[in-house]
């Protein structure tokens, strides 16, 4: 292993999306088939499993996607997204409980609270890079945890805060099966927004900042402002997920702002594959299911399993699930392309291979 190997790994991660896109463009139908399949799966999920868990998967998928915007696309590891998730959870519950706000308004307030908190936290955090950024976000999230712990009159401290049973336009949604369908459009909208951000010129700058911040700075882009922008967008999505999560459970607890929640989000991203967005959905499905299964089996020490998965993935499987799938796909595409070119332009195949290699 060398610095060169590391930079190659980084470039592979970066090119992963691009190459898959190229492969997709070659067969435009594939993208739509995948998307339709994914949507169908999302809609069918509460039939396939215990409905509250189905919605937990959706919420954690969006939280992980929010973390991935920073980690996978901007190169910033946020270890403090529990702050936004948890703040939104408390805000949504307080809005419902104290002010009797209807569901869309409670969600909106939760999202706004997370976004507002993200501005000062992000402003300070983006001054730091690399590992420093992770430590600073973790520390600020812990500060929010202590605030939530002490501000008992609002948050209920260790007892948590019970919210009203969810309803929408007079329809009672306390059945988790129904709530899933009320909440899913919000989650899908969040995922669509993340996808839109990544595939916009703004997203291109994000990736450029990840790969070479000094050059982006030299090109005249305000790097700090871009990072802050991504941070606020990411926190907003985390807030959307956290608010919906609390409303679906009718409960907000200190667990939502604790560092283990931040760690869970990061773990989902790393397991699913950094910088892939969809990997977070897969990761969320696996992690939430696993935790549900373990606690159902009466196994209290979930950290033994999740921690081991974390260690194994980081040591041996850094591309994650989706990233590995992309990698395999890319290799197949290349293998099928090279012989064809060899036939058409004999004698130049070496150069071609060099050029098409990532």
């Amino acid at each position: 292993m060398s610095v060169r190997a590391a930079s190659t790994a980084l470039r592979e991660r970066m090119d992963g999306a691009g190459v898959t896109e190229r492969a997709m463009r070659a067969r435009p139908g594939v993208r739509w088939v995948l998307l339709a399949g994914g949507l169908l799966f999302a809609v069918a999920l509460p039939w396939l499993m215990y409905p509250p868990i189905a919605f937990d998967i959706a919420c954690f998928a969006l939280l992980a996607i929010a973390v991935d915007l920073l980690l996978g696309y901007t190169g910033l590891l946020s270890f403090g997204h529990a702050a936004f998730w948890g703040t939104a959870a408390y805000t949504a519950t307080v809005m419902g409980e104290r002010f009797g706000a209807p569901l869309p308004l409670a969600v909106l307030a939760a999202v706004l609270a997370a976004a507002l908190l993200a501005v000062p936290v992000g402003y300070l955090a983006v001054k730091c890079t690399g590992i420093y950024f992770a430590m600073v976000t973790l520390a600020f999230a812990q500060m929010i945890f202590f605030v939530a712990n002490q501000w008992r009159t609002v948050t209920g401290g260790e007892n948590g805060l019970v919210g009203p049973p969810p309803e929408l336009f007079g329809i009672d949604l306390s059945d988790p099966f129904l709530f899933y369908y009320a909440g899913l459009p919000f989650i899908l909208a969040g995922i669509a927004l993340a996808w839109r951000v990544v595939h916009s010129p703004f997203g291109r700058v994000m990736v450029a900042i990840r790969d070479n911040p000094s050059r982006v700075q030299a090109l005249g882009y305000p790097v700090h402002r871009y990072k802050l922008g991504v941070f606020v967008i990411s926190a907003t999505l985390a807030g959307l997920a956290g608010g919906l999560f609390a409303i679906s459970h009718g409960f907000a607890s200190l667990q939502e702002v604790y560092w283990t929640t931040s760690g869970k989000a990061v773990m989902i991203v790393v397991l699913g594959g950094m910088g892939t967005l969809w990997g977070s959905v897969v990761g969320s499905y696996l992690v939430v299911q696993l935790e549900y299964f373990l606690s159902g089996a009466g196994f209290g020490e979930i950290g033994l399993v999740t921690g081991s998965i974390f260690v194994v993935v980081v040591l041996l499987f850094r591309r994650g699930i989706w990233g590995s799938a992309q990698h395999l796909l890319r290799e197949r595409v290349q293998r099928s392309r090279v012989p064809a070119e060899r036939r058409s332009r004999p004698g130049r195949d070496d150069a071609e291979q060099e050029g098409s290699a990532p």
Partner: protein
Amino acid sequence: MVNVIQQLFNGLVGGGFLALLALGLAVIFGMLRVVNFAHGAFYMLGAFGAYLLLTEAGVNFWLALLVVPAALAVVGMALERAFVHRLTQLDPLYNFLLTFGITLILQDLIKVRYGNQSQPYSRPALLDGSVNLGLFQYPSYQVFVLGFAIVLCLLVWLLLTRTRVGMIVRAATERPELTRSLGVDVGRWVTPVFGFGIGLAALAGVLAAPMRAVHPMMGSDLIITVFAVVVIGGLGSIFGSVVAGFGIGMAQAVGNLYVPALSQTLVFILMAVVLLWRPTGLFGREGVLT
């Protein structure tokens, strides 16, 4: 006034723990460019190690103070060889994630055996009383902890500045490539330095056992505060981490006296102020973090 001085003293004792942990973190970071999330877990293991030796084998505090850090330092070295080492050439974030996973495992391993509750550990008989510090009576164990922490920090400082090993470690921290090109085998020192840092954390854990709750989560909550301390002191600076450790300890104690509501959040507020004013920390330099 006496009250304030007593609080300052409390703060110094608390700061001693922060300083010892921050010091170990800084030494490891300097040599390996790894921020060791598992540092808090090893602090916790130190406390549980002392508890375990006492209850299972009747080993007293003083012996535990020697044996436990040494044993955990060996565990730390094995950890470095087996896992951390494989990732040091990659983005440092990977090792942060790795040690986070290890933290989860270590914590829950202890929980399997002891559940999610505190274990009692009594003070050593020799230090059970209190001493008269002129203005007030103070538990002698706390006085011992403070003295021990200060002596230990001084010893590490002497080790780093006055010995050949320390010179190599400092040189490797500042300019790893240049140190290598001068014919020093830097790689040989990586594992011992990691073990040494872990040993310091474990030592802090043994010291904490008689005065703080011996609990599986005691390390993780503390390590996040230590991260804030390290950010305030400057991640690359060993001196800064020790000064910030004692300073934050005192600030917390005095803050606790005047604004009790802020006692837990103060350190993070201070971190925010430092980030505004000096993003590299009070004693940090540009370019240490890459």
